[in-house]
């Protein structure tokens, strides 16, 4: 979940950056083209000025034209020392007749139109250079009717500087935009995650049986998450109403079934009080009372499992020291354990505070101890220990008995499940189901493992926040 949200925001940031790069690149290239275009136009104007026919030279011959042009070039050179402009006239053999080039540039063909060459060309006299670093020269070449070639040009030092400056600005902007995209993605992702976390926390509480819990809905925002939360809350209301109805039915059944059973027992017990009258069948009555006791006890256990499974809202919890409870239960059971020629080792030194119900936990521990005693042969050993494990209070109860086959580990927690090895021993098959329901109601976990030989039961209960 977490990675999905962050991957999505990362992908958005990446796509955003690529798009920005394309737009900025287009702007950059257009700017450069525009600059070159402007310079080319200037050069064409310069050329036109040079070639403009003189008013008083209109009637003079062609030889006079060349001399006139040379004069004009010299004139321009005189006024244009600082501009870094280039102008030269060469004859058809490439010899410079006038201008500020030393010879015809090596890379420039004798062809009409614009061309570029590097400033380091030996045709440029060092004094003419605008700056000492590397840049290009843009020139316009023009063929004259008499076979001579005229070349006008401009050094691009400033223009290239400008381009570089714009380029670095664009890269900086791109970096900034990428960074902001990423940041925005993370912030928005976290906002979404926060909402998802809230929904998940509420869902966990509901899963533990607290059906009064509702998913959080923002009063004004109403985004998609809120829509889902509203729908789910409506579903929960309906489920809650149904379960309430079920519980009422269960309570009524409990009342209605237990009352006649109880009457039956009282009747038998009262009959037993009158010894003389019923001496012959006293034995039968006694056994009936005991059977009835068994039925009622199973019935009570079933009800208490349902109650624990129904969740936390009906069971009062208070701070409990798990270690003290274990020591107490160990003491209660020590005599029974010794009576079966077993030994109990209780190792619960440190107080472990949890939030729980003492009677339910005692019942669960009692069921586990009963099992350990029942399935451990004489001379065996039972160990009961508690330790702090991260944020959990850990309880381990291990015996050296017959154990449970590994493939039965989940099966044994179901109601009325009894393994073949246990068929001839007393019990109703509800003990472990009751333990599981109790531990689940305490938001804990229970795990079984092989103690080789025997069974190890590990119970994890969340420690009170004060002790973490």
């Amino acid at each position, binding site marked *: 979940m977490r990675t999905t949200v962050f991957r999505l925001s990362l992908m958005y940031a990446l796509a955003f950056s690529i798009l920005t790069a394309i737009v900025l690149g287009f702007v950059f290239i257009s700017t450069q083209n525009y600059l070159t275009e402007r310079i080319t136009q200037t050069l064409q104007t310069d050329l036109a000025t040079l070639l403009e026919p003189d008013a008083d030279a209109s009637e003079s011959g062609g030889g006079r034209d060349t001399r006139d042009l040379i004069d004009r070039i010299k004139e321009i050179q005189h006024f244009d020392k600082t501009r870094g402009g280039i102008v030269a006239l060469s004859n058809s053999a490439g010899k410079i007749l006038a201008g500020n080039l030393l010879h015809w540039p090596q890379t420039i063909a004798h062809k009409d139109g614009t061309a570029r060459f590097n400033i380091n060309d030996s045709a440029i006299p060092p004094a003419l250079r605008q700056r000492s670093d590397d840049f290009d020269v843009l020139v316009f070449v023009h063929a004259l009717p008499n076979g001579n070639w005229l070349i006008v040009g401009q050094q691009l030092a400033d223009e290239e500087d400008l381009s570089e400056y714009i380029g670095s600005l664009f890269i900086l902007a791109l970096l900034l935009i990428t960074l902001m995209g990423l940041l925005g993605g993370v912030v928005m992702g976290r906002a979404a995650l926060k909402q998802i976390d809230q929904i998940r926390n509420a869902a966990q509480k509901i899963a533990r049986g607290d059906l009064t819990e509702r998913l959080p809905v923002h009063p004004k925002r109403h985004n998609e998450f809120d829509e889902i939360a509203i729908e789910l809350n409506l579903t929960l209301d309906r489920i809650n109403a149904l379960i309430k109805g079920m519980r009422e039915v269960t309570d009524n059944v409990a*009342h209605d079934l237990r009352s006649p059973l*109880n*009457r039956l027992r*009282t*009747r038998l*017990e009262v009959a037993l009080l009158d010894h003389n009258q019923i001496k012959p069948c006293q034995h039968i009555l006694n056994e009936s009372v*005991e059977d009835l006791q068994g039925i009622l006890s199973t019935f*009570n256990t079933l009800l208490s499992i349902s109650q624990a499974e129904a969740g936390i809202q009906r069971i009062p919890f208070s701070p409990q020291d798990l270690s003290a409870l274990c020591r107490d239960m160990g003491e*209660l059971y020590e005599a029974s354990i010794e009576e079966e020629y077993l030994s109990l080792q209780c190792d619960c030194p440190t107080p472990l505070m949890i939030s729980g119900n003492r009677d339910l936990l005692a019942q669960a521990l009692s069921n586990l101890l009963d099992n350990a005693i029942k399935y451990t042969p004489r001379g065996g050993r039972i160990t009961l220990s508690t330790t702090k494990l991260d944020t959990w209070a850990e309880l381990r109860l291990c015996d050296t008995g017959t154990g449970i086959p590994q493939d039965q580990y989940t099966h044994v927690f179901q109601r009325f499940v009894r393994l073949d090895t246990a068929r001839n021993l007393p019990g109703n098959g509800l003990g472990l189901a009751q333990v599981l329901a109790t531990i689940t109601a305490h938001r804990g976990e229970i795990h079984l493992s092989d103690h080789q030989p025997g069974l190890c039961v590990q119970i994890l209960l969340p420690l009170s926040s004060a002790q973490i």
Partner: protein
Amino acid sequence: MKILIVEDDTRAAHYLNKGLSESGHQCDLAADGETGLHMAITGQYDVLIVDRMMPKLDGLALIAAFRAAGKTTPVMVLSALGEVDDRISGLRVGGDDYLVKPYAFGELLARLNALTRRAQPAASGLENDTLTVADLVLDRNKHRVTRAEQRILLQPREFRLLEYLMRHADQVVTRTMLLEQVWDYHFDPQTNVIEVHISRLRRKIDRDFSLPLLHTIRGAGYRLGIVPED
């Protein structure tokens, strides 16, 4: 003693009445809460047995009203609701003991006896530091138990167990009562853990003496006293 039974299940009330009468008690019956409250306030009873769920006025409301009228008669609450918080709310409104259906009749009888005995502390010598049953003496101050002048060494829990049994001498005390009063647990052990503690205690106080004091009452519990009931 004189007992008022407030129970809407008339047949259950009938058997309760029969059983209690045969145990030597005198009972009055009330079939709903309002009648029950009226009879409880106007009559003279040693103990009240009140069902929780009843028409007109439920058991808790009855007890609250009864206590508000300034009555201190012990009240035993009976209920099919066995959850822990129900037990607590039952005791909070002024009930003195709480028994969850299904209960054994012997359990009810034993608890009723304990309740009425508690109501008259002066007569039973509860305030004494020494408890005596026949030649068995328990000194709470010195934490010392002797029988026929012989010192008997007990574990702390065995001491509390014996103390409870001696305070309720000649009464039937059930296993559930012992688990609640001596160990402070309200749950239902599948095996009889209490039985083992009792037999250990019995070995210490009875084995070397000719007169047994700690008796097991079949189907009900235990009784500490000179003569067994049956």
